[in-house]
C-alpha cells in the first residue's frame, strides 16, 4: 500500500490560512489502512483545524467528506457537491489522489494534507515499513523476494556492503540488513547459487530518472 503521514497542524494552518470554507477530503483506500487519511483521520484533523481556528481566530469553516478512492474519477464524482461548496480542498489522499482532484477541478485550490512517504506494509501494529521503491524493473525474483533496491540503504545488488553488525543495517541500525535477509531466505529456499550471478548496474531509466512514467495498455484503450 501507499504509506503516508499527516502534516503538522501549524503547517496545515499556513497552507490554508488564505481560505475560509475548507473541505477536508479523505480517501478510503491506502491512507485509511495506514491511518493517515481515512474517515477517522479526517474527523481528527478537522477537529484540530477547528480548534486551531478558534484559538488563533482564523475563521475556518471546515467540512468533512471521504470517498473510496481519490485517484479515480468515478469516486471523485461523489465528492462533487462538497467540492463545489468549498473555497479549497485539503486532500488527505496520497500525492496521486491530491493531483487527481486538482486535475478534475482546475478552478479549485487543492492542497496536500499528508506527506506521501513510500510503498510498504504494516510490519506490526503502528509500524509501517518501506518494501518497494517502484523502480519500474522488478528484481525480486533474483533475491528470494527481498528487494535490495529498497531495503538495502546502499542499494547494493551484488552482496552486502560489509558494514552490517549483528544482522542490522549500518546506515539504519533499527532496520535489518537486507543482504542478511536475502542470504537467509535464499538458503531457506535452496537458491543460494543465485548469488554467484553477477548483476550488471541497474538500468534506472524505468524509474523516475527517466521522467514521469506512463503505462499504456492498447488492449484496454477505447
Amino acid at each position, binding site marked *: 500500500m501507499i504509506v503516508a503521514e499527516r502534516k*503538522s*497542524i*501549524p503547517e496545515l494552518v499556513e497552507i490554508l490560512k488564505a481560505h475560509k470554507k475548507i473541505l477536508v477530503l479523505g480517501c478510503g483506500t491506502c491512507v485509511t489502512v495506514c491511518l493517515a487519511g481515512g474517515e*477517522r483521520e479526517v*474527523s*481528527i484533523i478537522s*477537529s*484540530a*483545524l*477547528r*480548534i*486551531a*481556528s*478558534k*484559538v*488563533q481566530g*482564523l*475563521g*475556518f*469553516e*471546515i*467540512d468533512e467528506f471521504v470517498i473510496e478512492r481519490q485517484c479515480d474519477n468515478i469516486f471523485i464524482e461523489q465528492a462533487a457537491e462538497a467540492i463545489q461548496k468549498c473555497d479549497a480542498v485539503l486532500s488527505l489522499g496520497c500525492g496521486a489522489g491530491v493531483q487527481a482532484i486538482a486535475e478534475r477541478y482546475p478552478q479549485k485550490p487543492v492542497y496536500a494534507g499528508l506527506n506521501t512517504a513510500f510503498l510498504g506494509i504494516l510490519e506490526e501494529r503502528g509500524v509501517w515499513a518501506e518494501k518497494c521503491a517502484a523502480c519500474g524493473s522488478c528484481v525480486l525474483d533474483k533475491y528470494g523476494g527481498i528487494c535490495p533496491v529498497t531495503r538495502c540503504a546502499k542499494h547494493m545488488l551484488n552482496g552486502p556492503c560489509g558494514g552490517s553488525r549483528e544482522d542490522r543495517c549500518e546506515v539504519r541500525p533499527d532496520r535489518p540488513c537486507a543482504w542478511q535477509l536475502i542470504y537467509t531466505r535464499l538458503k531457506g529456499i535452496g537458491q543460494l547459487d543465485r548469488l554467484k550471478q553477477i548483476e550488471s548496474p541497474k538500468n534506472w531509466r524505468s524509474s523516475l530518472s527517466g521522467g514521469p512514467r506512463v503505462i499504456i495498455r492498447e488492449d484496454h484503450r477505447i
Partner: protein
Amino acid sequence: MMNIENTEPTIVAFCCHYCAYAAADLAGSSRLQYPPNVRIIRTPCTGRLEVDFFMKAFENGADGVLVAGCEEGSCHFKEGNLLAKRRVNYTRKLLSEAGLEAERLRMVNIGAADAQKFAEHVREMVETVRKLGPARLKKATNQG
C-alpha cells in the same frame, strides 16, 4: 455543553467502569467533596477511547478532559489503559499543535477503592484548568 457559570471550567472525565467510575461512585457514597465541574462519562475501558473522543470533547466545549483508567498492570482487559495512555499522549501533542495547552488533557490511574484519590485528581484538574482559563471553544460547530 454549557458551563455552570461563565467563570467555572467544565471538565469531562472519561472513567473506566472497572476502576475510576467505581472510585467516583465510592467518593459519592462516602460523601467526599470534590468540585462539581466534572461531567463523568463511564466507559467500558479507557482502551475504548480514541483520539477523536478527546478532540470532540474539547470541540464541544470542555475546558479540560480527564481520562481515568485502572492502575498500570491491573487493567480488566490487560492493556486498555496502556493503549489509552498512548492515545492521550498523541492527542496532547495534537492539541499543542492546534494552539491549545496540552495540560488540558490528562490521564490518571485510579484503583476502584481509591475514592480519595479520585477526588484529589478532580480537584487538581479543575485547579489546572482554572489557572489556564477557559478554552473558548464552546459552540464550535462548523464555524471556526
